[in-house]
């Protein structure tokens, strides 16, 4: 079940809101756990067992770590937590890739396990690891209540697509949190914005990307138009989902970390990754990059650290080598930026550094979204006029005209302009009491209208 679905909006959400707010305070965590498990089981009626096993095993291991912190038994328990968590992730997500790679390299024909990827496993595995590692580091005590830990891991707003909320970030809120009309209203605003980003922009512009891929009349212009569309689609898709998650969290009294900060206004790849999927970047920084030595190491060790982190970041996104290449691509760009590129770009007018970043990111999306080497090379070949396709044709012109308003709106909405205008708008009582709710109501109604008439409602990060 995704947030931008009718069954979530008009079946699950009303039910969980009533159950949660009607329940006495001491029962609210169990209600939220039950609701979250139902939410997960809706999409994964079988793999919910896997998540519960993972939660329970790590619940016990964290207690052992806490009880024996600093001693060998704690280290063994942490090792067990890492092995179990990454083992499950590896088996269910990467076994197929491993087997097919071995088959290719050795020319053999081992049977690859035919496993569906458990929804959200990449997210909840990282949350579990952040918990046991932080307990091991002494940053937080182990959670004594299984229900509380299980609720943290399975909390439906962030379960399947993040943000990756670290245990220490919300440990206090798990025990006690504030509910108020203001917080709920904040959550409503954020959720509404996220829903509109996802339904009105991402899904809509995604049709252009789909048309560019499926065209029987490829052209250079259409290939670029398509990748511009995907660049916007993935941003509004994922950031919209994060907004909805943060908004839902607010309604239930949680404050989740931000996940996006207008990444496309960045001037370097390094800055882009400080603004894109921030909770993932912070996770890799704290649990992989810094333990490897971070930047306070000899140069070539640092280069290795960067490449390892970005190789893993790429693979986290999907069990396919194109994702690994995608990650390493960014790692290499960051190394180059630190070596000379950033200094060079800073000497140029800002427009050049923005253009560099947008071009670098758009190119990356080709090997993020297209999975086979043939697809990627074909598409890049068309983009750069190497495939023999004409520069433009009637279909490219038509699709450009058809989507121009949407593209312009998407580009503007991807910048901080909207937030700036929102801050500069007069904060009169009329605006707060009438216009803002009216605008939110209109966005909700429009989102509903689009959902009712949509057969195209993918969620790109669902597969991770």
């Amino acid at each position, binding site marked *: 079940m995704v947030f931008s679905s009718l069954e979530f*909006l008009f079946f699950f959400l009303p039910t969980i809101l009533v159950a949660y707010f009607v329940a006495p305070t001491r029962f609210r965590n169990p209600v939220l756990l039950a609701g979250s498990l139902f939410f997960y089981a809706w999409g994964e009626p079988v793999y919910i067992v896997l998540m519960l096993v993972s939660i329970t095993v790590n619940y016990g291991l964290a207690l052992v770590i806490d009880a024996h912190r600093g001693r060998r038994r704690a280290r063994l328990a942490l090792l067990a937590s890492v092995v179990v968590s990454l083992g499950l992730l590896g088996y269910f997500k990467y076994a197929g890739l491993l087997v097919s790679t071995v088959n290719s390299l050795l020319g053999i024909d081992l049977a690859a396990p035919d496993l569906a990827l458990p929804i959200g496993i990449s997210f909840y595995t990282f949350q579990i690891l952040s918990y046991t590692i932080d307990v091991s580091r002494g940053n937080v005590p182990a959670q004594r209540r299984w229900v509380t830990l299980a609720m943290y891991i399975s909390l439906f707003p962030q379960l399947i697509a993040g943000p990756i909320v670290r245990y220490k970030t919300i440990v206090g809120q798990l025990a006690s949190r504030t509910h108020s009309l203001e917080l709920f209203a904040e959550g409503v605003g954020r959720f509404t914005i996220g829903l509109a980003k996802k339904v009105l922009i991402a899904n809509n512009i995604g049709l252009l990307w789909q048309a560019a891929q499926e065209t029987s009349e490829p052209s250079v212009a259409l290939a670029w138009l398509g990748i511009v569309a995907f660049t916007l689609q993935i941003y509004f898709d994922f950031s919209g989902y994060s907004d909805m998650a943060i908004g839902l969290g607010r309604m239930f009294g949680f404050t989740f970390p931000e996940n996006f900060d207008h990444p496309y206004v960045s001037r370097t790849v390094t800055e882009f990754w400080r603004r894109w999927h921030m909770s993932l970047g912070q996770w890799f920084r704290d649990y992989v990059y810094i333990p490897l030595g971070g930047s306070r190491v000899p140069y070539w060790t640092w280069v290795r650290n960067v490449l390892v982190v970005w190789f893993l970041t790429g693979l986290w996104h999907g069990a396919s080598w194109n994702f690994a290449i995608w990650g390493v691509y960014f790692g290499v760009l960051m190394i180059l930026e630190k070596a000379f590129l950033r200094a060079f770009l800073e000497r140029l007018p800002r427009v050049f550094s923005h253009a560099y970043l947008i071009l670098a990111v758009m190119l990356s999306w080709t090997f993020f979204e297209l999975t086979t080497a043939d697809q990627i090379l074909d598409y890049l070949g068309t983009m750069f006029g190497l495939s023999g396709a004409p520069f433009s044709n009637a279909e490219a012109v038509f699709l450009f005209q058809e989507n121009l308003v949407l593209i312009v709106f998407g580009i503007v909405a991807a910048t901080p302009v909207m937030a700036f205008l929102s801050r500069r708008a007069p904060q009169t009582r009329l605006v707060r009491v009438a216009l803002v709710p009216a605008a939110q109501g209109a966005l909700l109604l429009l989102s509903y209208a689009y959902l009712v008439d949509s057969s195209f409602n993918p969620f790109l990060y669902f597969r991770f």
Partner: protein
Amino acid sequence: MRPKLANDAIGSVAVFLAFIFGITALNVLTPTKDTSVYERRALAQFPTVSVENVLSGGFAHDFGVFAQDQAAYRDEMRFVKSAVERTVFQKVTNNGVYPIGDRVYDQFHGIRDDYVSAAGRRMNEILAAVQPASAYLSLVPTKAQGLQDDRYLLSDQHAVADPLRDSVQADYVDLLWLADAGPGVRYYGADPHWTTSGAIDAYGALARGMGLDPVTGYRFEQFTDTYVGSEYGKAASWSVPLDTIELAHNDVIDGMSICRIETADRTVCHDSVYVPTPPESLDDYDVFLGGLAPIVEITNPAAPAGSHLVMFKDSYAHAVAPFLAQHYRTTTLVDLRYVERQYVLDNVDFDGADVLFLYSTSVINTDSRAVN
């Protein structure tokens, strides 16, 4: 006194709760519908609850489809979305059609040369097998061909018609000009088919091309003025009205009867070429010959005995067939999308028959099995 901030928040919270609980209540209270009149299709019903269905994820998927199909004010919301697409996002398409003013046009774009050449090859194979007295080929223009504005993506349907004209061993009767002057009254506003008036114009051209003297002078009966064309629901535009279907009569047409061979074991006969659609029908165009069927045979007792026309066709032929049938004792309509060619060759009498291939350029271009 309540804090000012809390008062400010009430509006947002009230709107949100009214939205999710209001629509939830409407969904629960509104009776489940079997069909969508505007979309002309059956709507999903509440899925089967079983352990197997739940564990396989089938229930969750089916419930999602059910929730979408049975959403409160579904039709109205589809119209809202269409209006926003065209006014806010300035799109000219909605669900793959062009709603323009009070009419809807199909998107005819992208020529499938492989489909076209395959159709031509199979037509020649059929002609070689049946050795007809005379053979004719004609192609029905798409309504979209009448669009004059460059803003619309439109392929030239001569790219479908010309190769067939040049390759099929039959006399070609040109009908493409019918759409060149604009759709006018020759096509329904929200359906790709000919109106009765358009069918009469097409019949006139066909008859002349086939060496027949077109019959003129008909009485017209209004069958319905609430015809929901197949493009009406796709366009979902308030400015597009429902269509009117008229039926043409004269003594010869009124004396015809039809037999619909629906399967090898089931033949249903009617004493008119116009078969009133049942109340639950989603497509009033089915009034013409009772709708699509593998083989339909029209008998005209007023025509000379032994005269026989076999039409290989798609749905566009249904409106024009009663007029052509005025010249033949028997007119057999064959839709090769629903019956194997060999069955037709084995079971239809081609002895001394004229053969007419009458297909829409759109069907030839989009359905690889239009002529199988």
